[in-house]
């Protein structure tokens, strides 16, 4: 499973992209975020406020109960500010 981080999430995590292999009981975005938080203080800090995080699963916007599986591309980022 590929995880992408953008903007201040990328800065706080300390990486823009990583490949992870979460345990089998991680089945949705909420579960994935909970599991990522256990990986270190940088993750805990970056992922502290779930309401500040937007999610895309395989390059489509998704919400916390969207399913995730091996091979997916999950992106975590703050609200967008383009244009």
């Amino acid at each position, binding site marked *: 499973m590929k995880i*992408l981080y953008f903007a201040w999430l990328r800065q706080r995590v300390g990486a823009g992209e990583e490949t992870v292999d979460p345990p089998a009981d991680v089945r949705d975005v909420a579960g994935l975020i909970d599991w990522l938080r256990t990986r270190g203080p940088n993750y805990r800090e970056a992922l502290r406020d779930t309401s500040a995080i937007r999610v895309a699963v395989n*390059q489509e916007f998704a919400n916390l109960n969207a399913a995730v599986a091996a091979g997916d591309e999950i992106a975590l*980022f703050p609200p*967008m500010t383009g*244009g």
Partner: protein
Amino acid sequence: MTVRVQREDFDVGAEIAALTAGRNDVGGIATFLGLVRDTAGGERISAMTLEHYPGMTEKMLGQIEAEARQRWPLDATLIIHRYGRLQPGDRIVLVATASAHRKAALDSCAFLIDWLKTKAPFWKLEETDAGAQWVAARDSDDAAAARWQAGGGAKPKAAE
């Protein structure tokens, strides 16, 4: 029908002319050109860096453009969005819509820039005297995008 995400600057006049090259059935072209401002909330901005999500950006801009073409009778559309480090006064984004009908061109141009603000995965980092800071999304941008909502189409949801 054209979406470009690029680091390079663009030539507004040439892009607008290319939109109707070889055809004489277009009555009007509406455009919106976004520029880097040198202040924000009273603070001086010395530079701005645009980060984006390669792959998803093009996909979302393509979806937004397709939505516009479904809602309005458009002859041609163009979205160019830059990324990378930009200076005040630099061009950031160009949206252009061509139609036989002026209202279709004007409305779809406003729609595209409003939706782009809330649906295209770009993030702005501003360099100020106080250091670099990520631009916060504005409620007014959500409100601007929401006014197009009645006609259908999904809006990105908060992950709460």
